[in-house]
C-alpha cells in the first residue's frame, strides 16, 4: 500500500521540480544573508575575493590547539599589522605585502583571532565560576525550595570542568544554527506534497472505493507513513543543502570541539560537540516538521478537496509562524526550530518540582499533538478514505 501512496503523492514531477526550485531559493537566501552580513561579493564555489582568502590563511595558521608559541606569534602578527597600518594608513588599492590586501583588514582579523584565543583561554575560569555560583545557590535553596535546589545542582554539574583548548573557524556553525529559512521551505514543500493526501481521494471519488474494500484504516496508516517518509527525506535534503552551502562559504572546522567554543554559546547547557549540535538541530527541526506534516494530513482528512486543504494548511503554517513569538517556548512547537536560542540560553521548566529543559517539554507537546492528529486522521479515514 505504501508504494502506491508514495507514487500517488510524492513521485510526481511537480514535487520534484518544486524541491529543486526550493534548493535554488535556499541557496539565494544563504548568499543574501552572507552578503548582508559583510561576507563580500564573490563568495561561493571558488569565487572568493582576496580579503576572504587572506582571512582564511590567517585562520588556518592559528587554528587547532592553542599553544604559547601560537600566542606569541599572534602578538607579533598584530604588531606587524599595526606597523603596516601606520605606514600605509587607510588605502583603497590592495597591497601585496598583506594577508587581506589591506593593513586595516589584517589588524581586524588578527584582533578577532586574539579575541577568540582570549575567550578560549578564559572560558574554563568562566564556566567554573558559574558552576561554583550554581553550587552555592543550590546550598542556599536546599530544604527551602526543591525546584531551585535541583535546578542549581543541574547547572553546577553542567558547567563543571569545561574547557576550550582549541581554536577553529566557527562562523559556519553560528550561521547554520541561526538559519531557519530552509525549515520554512520544508513546510511549504510538505504542504504541496501532503495537503492532497486525503483530500485528493475525496475530490476524485476514490475514497468510496477504498472504504468499500474495508481498507480505510490501512490506507490511512500508509498515508501517514508516506507523509513521515517524505518529511524525513525533503527536510534532510534541504538541511543538507544548508550544510553544503555553509561548508562552501565558511567551511566546517573543528567538528569535535564543544559548542561553547563559540562565545555566543558560552552558557549552553548541553555538553555537545559541533557535529552533535548540527545533528541535534536537524533532529529537532525534523520533529517539528513531522508534527506539522501530521497536522497537514489531519487538515487534508477534514477537507473536501485539495485546494481547500492546501489553503487551510498554508493559513495554519502562516499562523504558526506569526504566533511563534507570542507562545511560551515550552509549549510552542516552533521553538524546536530555533536551536541558536536553545544553545545560547538555559531554559528550564518546573515539572512537578524537577527542572526539565524547555525543549524536552516542547518535544512532549509535539509528540502529544502528533498522536492527536494521527488518531483523528485515522478515525476520519475509516469513514471517508
Amino acid at each position, binding site marked *: 500500500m505504501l508504494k502506491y501512496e508514495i507514487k500517488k503523492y510524492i513521485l510526481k514531477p511537480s514535487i520534484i521540480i518544486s524541491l529543486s526550485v526550493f534548493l535554488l531559493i535556499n541557496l539565494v537566501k544563504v548568499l543574501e544573508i552572507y552578503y548582508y552580513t559583510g561576507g563580500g561579493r564573490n563568495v561561493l564555489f571558488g569565487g572568493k575575493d582576496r580579503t576572504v582568502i587572506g582571512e582564511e590563511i590567517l585562520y588556518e595558521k592559528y587554528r587547532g590547539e592553542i599553544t604559547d608559541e601560537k600566542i606569541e606569534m599572534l602578538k607579533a602578527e598584530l604588531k606587524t599589522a599595526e606597523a603596516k597600518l601606520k605606514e600605509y594608513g587607510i588605502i583603497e588599492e590592495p597591497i601585496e605585502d598583506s594577508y587581506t590586501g589591506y593593513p586595516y583588514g589584517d589588524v581586524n582579523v588578527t584582533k578577532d583571532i586574539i579575541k577568540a584565543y582570549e575567550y578560549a583561554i578564559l572560558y574554563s575560569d568562566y564556566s567554573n565560576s558559574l558552576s561554583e555560583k550554581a553550587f552555592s545557590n543550590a546550598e542556599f535553596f536546599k530544604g527551602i525550595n526543591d525546584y531551585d535546589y535541583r535546578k542549581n545542582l543541574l547547572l553546577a554539574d553542567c558547567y563543571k570542568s569545561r574547557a576550550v583548548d582549541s581554536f577553529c573557524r566557527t562562523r559556519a556553525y553560528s550561521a547554520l544554527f541561526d538559519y531557519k529559512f530552509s525549515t520554512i521551505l520544508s513546510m511549504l514543500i510538505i504542504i504541496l506534497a501532503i495537503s492532497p493526501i486525503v483530500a485528493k481521494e475525496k475530490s476524485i*471519488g476514490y475514497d468510496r472505493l477504498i472504504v468499500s474494500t474495508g481498507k480505510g484504516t490501512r490506507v490511512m496508516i500508509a498515508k501517514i507513513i508516506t507523509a513521515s517518509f517524505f518529511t524525513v527525506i525533503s527536510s534532510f535534503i534541504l538541511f543538507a543543502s544548508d550544510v553544503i552551502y555553509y561548508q562552501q562559504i565558511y567551511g566546517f572546522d573543528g567538528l569535535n570541539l564543544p559548542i561553547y567554543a563559540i562565545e555566543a554559546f558560552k552558557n549552553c547547557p548541553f555538553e555537545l560537540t559541533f557535529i552533535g549540535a548540527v545533528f541535534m538541530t536537524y533532529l529537532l527541526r525534523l520533529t517539528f516538521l513531522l508534527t506539522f506534516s501530521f497536522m497537514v494530513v489531519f487538515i487534508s482528512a477534514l477537507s473536501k478537496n485539495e485546494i481547500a486543504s492546501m489553503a487551510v494548511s498554508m493559513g495554519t503554517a502562516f499562523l504558526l509562524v506569526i504566533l511563534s513569538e507570542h507562545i511560551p517556548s515550552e509549549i510552542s512547537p516552533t521553538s524546536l526550530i530555533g536551536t541558536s536560542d536553545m544553545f545560547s540560553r538555559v531554559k528550564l521548566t518546573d515539572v512537578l518540582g524537577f527542572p526539565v529543559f524547555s525543549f524536552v517539554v516542547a518535544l512532549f507537546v509535539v509528540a502529544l499533538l502528533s498522536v492527536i492528529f494521527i488518531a483523528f486522521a485515522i478515525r476520519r479515514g475509516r469513514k471517508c478514505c
Partner: protein
Amino acid sequence: MTLQIRELSKAYSKGKKALDSFTLTLEKGVYGILGPNGAGKSTLINCITGIIKADSGSIIFDDNGDRDYMKRLGFLPQNQDFYPNFTAREMILYSMALKDVKADDPKTYADEILKRVNLYDDRNKKVGAHSGGMKQRLGIAQALVGEPKIVIFDEPTAGLDPKERIRFRNVISSLANDKIVILATHIVTDIAFIAKNVVLMDRGRMIDCASQTELCSNIYGKVWETVTDYDKGMELMKEKRVSNVVSEGELFNVRVVSDEKPTEDAVSVQPSLEDVCIYHFGEIG
C-alpha cells in the same frame, strides 16, 4: 447465490428516511434500480458497499456457504476518477493491493482484466491522458478485480458518448452469467437494454421488483398516444403525465400515461420502461 437485503433502514440527521425497511432478494443477473431523485438509490448502494452504516436491518450473502460478501464485491462509484500519474495497469495493480488479490504474476493478471474492457493496448498510458470513456472502462476493470460475485455500478454511463455507452452495455451483459450486477442509473434506456430485473424505488422503499415485461404488462392499457394540435397538447402536458411528445408538422403525437383515456381518439399502446417510471414517479428515472 443470493444477496438478501432485509428491512434496511437509514435516516439522516434531519430525520429524513433515506431507506425505510427496504427489503429485496437478489440472485444472479443484472438488476436495474430506478427511482426519482431522493428515492434512496445512492443510500442503498452506500449501505451495500459499506460506505455508510444502516441504522437497522441486515444484508446477508450466501454463495454455497460463503457469507462474506464484502470480499466478493466490485464497485464503480458515480463520477469515478483516477490518479492521473498512474498508468491503467498500475491502477489495476493498486486495486489488487486494496482487495488483497494475490496472483503469481500480478502484471499478467492486471493485463487480463484490462483485455476484458478493451484497455490492454493502453495499459501503459497515464490515466491523465485517458478519455472519459476509457476512464469508465478502467472503472469497470477495477470493479472486476478479484472476480467479484456482486458488482455494483452507480450511474456508470453518465457522460459517455453513444459508442462508449454501447460498449459499456456489452461489457455488463457479459458479466451477468455468474454475478449479481446492480445498476443504479437515471438513464432508463441503459436498464432497458441490460437489466433482466428492474427494482423500482421511491422514498426509501421498494415499490416493485420484476422483469421489464412484467412491469410493462402491469400498466398495460394505461399508456396512450394521441395526435393533437398545439393547444390541446399543451393542455395534456399540464394535466396528465406525458412521457413523450413528437412534432408532426403542425400537429403533435403525445404519449400519455394515465389510468383513463386522455382524449376520445387516444389509442392504447405497448408500455415501455420509461412509461413505467412516469406511471410510478411522474418522471423518468
